[in-house]
């Protein structure tokens, strides 16, 4: 600083006290939209443990690596064996890795909202220019973005790998784009469900358990019922049962509109008519989750 004059000190004396007193701030105040963006970026960084203790970086980073590793292996195999296609569709990747995604949502959704409730930081936020809606939107967007990063990164690895292996460019690009759309939907849906569940409880442990329970039990129940329905009555009922768990919902949408091969028993996904219902239910759930979060935070005042 230019204004800092060397004070008259005894040579060799290292102690100098700078008491510059209180300074007023008359710079810009960027207001509500900026505050919302700040909350978004802070929460997004927090979802990967950045800006927090070393301990809280371990799990999200580990899950990120676990998520990307199979993609890297597949690429290596494809390049080495000079295969004509990747061993797995872009749209199927997230479905196969759903356990990792569920674990990530279960660990980070409570991290994002339960902490604020537990340590009562929420009132501090609302004493700032932001309003309830800003808080909900920032938190929702940050967790959805974090999930998108988690699910889209391996797709990117696959895509880059596929291009390196000189697979058909147009074909791969189309598949990659379809994959991105499906993981974007998945991110919004999972983030919404995770946040709604986590925002009910200030206890992080309960939040984690509840999110895992909802995601895995619904998937377990749905796939069991689907298997039974497949044996007993053919594929008609199989499609409709798929509406009842988040991961099969995304699978159904991808199979109907994004050219994916379904993971449903029998390999037959919903047709276009049923597919429309899938899309409606998915969007309905996302909107419903947002609405519930808004209602929840109306009540959490000071």
């Amino acid at each position, binding site marked *: 600083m230019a204004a800092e004059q060397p004070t008259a000190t005894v040579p060799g004396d290292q102690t100098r006290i700078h008491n510059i007193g209180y300074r007023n701030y008359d710079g810009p105040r960027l207001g509500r939209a900026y*505050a919302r963006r700040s909350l978004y970026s802070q929460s997004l960084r927090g979802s990967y443990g950045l800006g927090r*203790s070393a301990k809280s970086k371990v799990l999200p980073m580990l899950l990120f690596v676990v998520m990307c590793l199979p993609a890297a292996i597949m690429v290596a195999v494809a390049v080495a064996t000079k295969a004509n296609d990747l061993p797995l569709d872009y749209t199927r990747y997230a479905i196969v890795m759903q356990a990792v995604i569920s674990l990530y949502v279960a660990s980070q959704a409570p991290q994002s909202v339960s902490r604020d409730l537990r340590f009562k930081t929420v009132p*501090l936020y609302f004493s*700032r*220019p932001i309003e309830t809606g800003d808080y909900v939107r920032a938190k929702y967007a940050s967790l959805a973005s974090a999930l998108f990063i988690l699910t889209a990164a391996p797709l990117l690895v696959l895509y880059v790998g596929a291009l390196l292996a000189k697979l058909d460019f147009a074909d791969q690009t189309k598949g990659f784009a379809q994959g991105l759309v499906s993981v974007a939907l998945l991110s919004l849906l999972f983030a919404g469900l995770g946040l709604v569940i986590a925002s009910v409880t200030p206890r992080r442990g309960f939040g984690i358990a509840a999110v895992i329970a909802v995601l895995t039990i619904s998937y377990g129940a749905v796939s069991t019922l689907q298997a039974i329905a497949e044996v007993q009555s053919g594929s008609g009922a199989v499609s409709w049962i798929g509406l009842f768990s988040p991961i099969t919902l995304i699978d159904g949408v991808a199979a109907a509109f994004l050219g994916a091969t379904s993971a449903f028993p029998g390999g037959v996904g919903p047709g276009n008519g049923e597919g429309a219902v899938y899309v409606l239910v998915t969007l309905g759930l996302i909107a419903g989750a947002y609405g519930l979060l808004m209602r929840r935070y109306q009540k959490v005042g000071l």
Partner: protein
Amino acid sequence: MIATESLSKRFPRVTALDRLSVDIGPGVTGLVGANGAGKSTLIKILLGLSPATEGRAEVLGLDVASKGADIRERVGYMPEHDCLPPDVSATEFVVHMARMSGLPPTAARERTADTLRHVGLYEERYRPIGGYSTGMKQRVKLAQALVHDPQLVFLDEPTNGLDPVGRDEMLGLIRRIHTDFGISVLVTSHLLGELERTCDHVVVVDGGKLLRSSSTTDFTQSTTTLAIEVTDTDEHPDGTRAVRDALDARGVAVQDGSGLPGAGHVLLLTSAGEETYDLVRDVIADLGLGLVRMEQRRHHISEVFTDSDAQRKEAVGHGS
């Protein structure tokens, strides 16, 4: 700074504020009331977070009902309860809160360093908040309320949970917020004595109603009570009694200081100003006694409430 006009807040079962009209100017203002008197409700309304049932309020000339966000940009708030996440450092947390108030990133960092130094946090500011003492946590809470250089801060029970030394330091800090930083303060407490020392102005609320709003000097002067204690001598084996009789003879009403430490030896009298001190000195000197102590007894919140209870009963009596 703050003006309310017959401000009321009713919940389905309770009335938290009942036609409260106050006008608060710059400086340090104490808001006193028992728990549940409506202090926190008032702050919530003033921050524009909770709509009033009726009446209106302005903060810094802005209407709370329509300009909530603008008010919150220029006002700081320190809540009563714990509000700090334990796994981040004070610096990290305060920088984040500064940005939430609209400060650009570089300014947020600079102001955080400044503010933490002003509230008395130095090297420990890089450690996670979880390991702080209550006093240090209170300082962090204060820092996050001041970091965006507001024109006015609301401090909700800032001395809660502090030991006597911590309490004094916090009160000194609050005083400095106004004198050194130029920021006006509204501080709540249920201890009047504490606020008398720091505030220029005290507002007392009870049951959502305004009991009293006056400057601190009025508060104590109008009701100064003197406590005196004297020695006994051979001539006057019961010195206390002798002083009492002598003062009675001069027309000064004296009471026993029952309920005080040293009861039986302490006399209480209402001071009418300088003459009373002179009178007491002369009387005791004439009797040849030693004056052990003569002190101003300060008014306590309980007395304000007793007075008002008496008035209320009187009012009810007149009404029926």
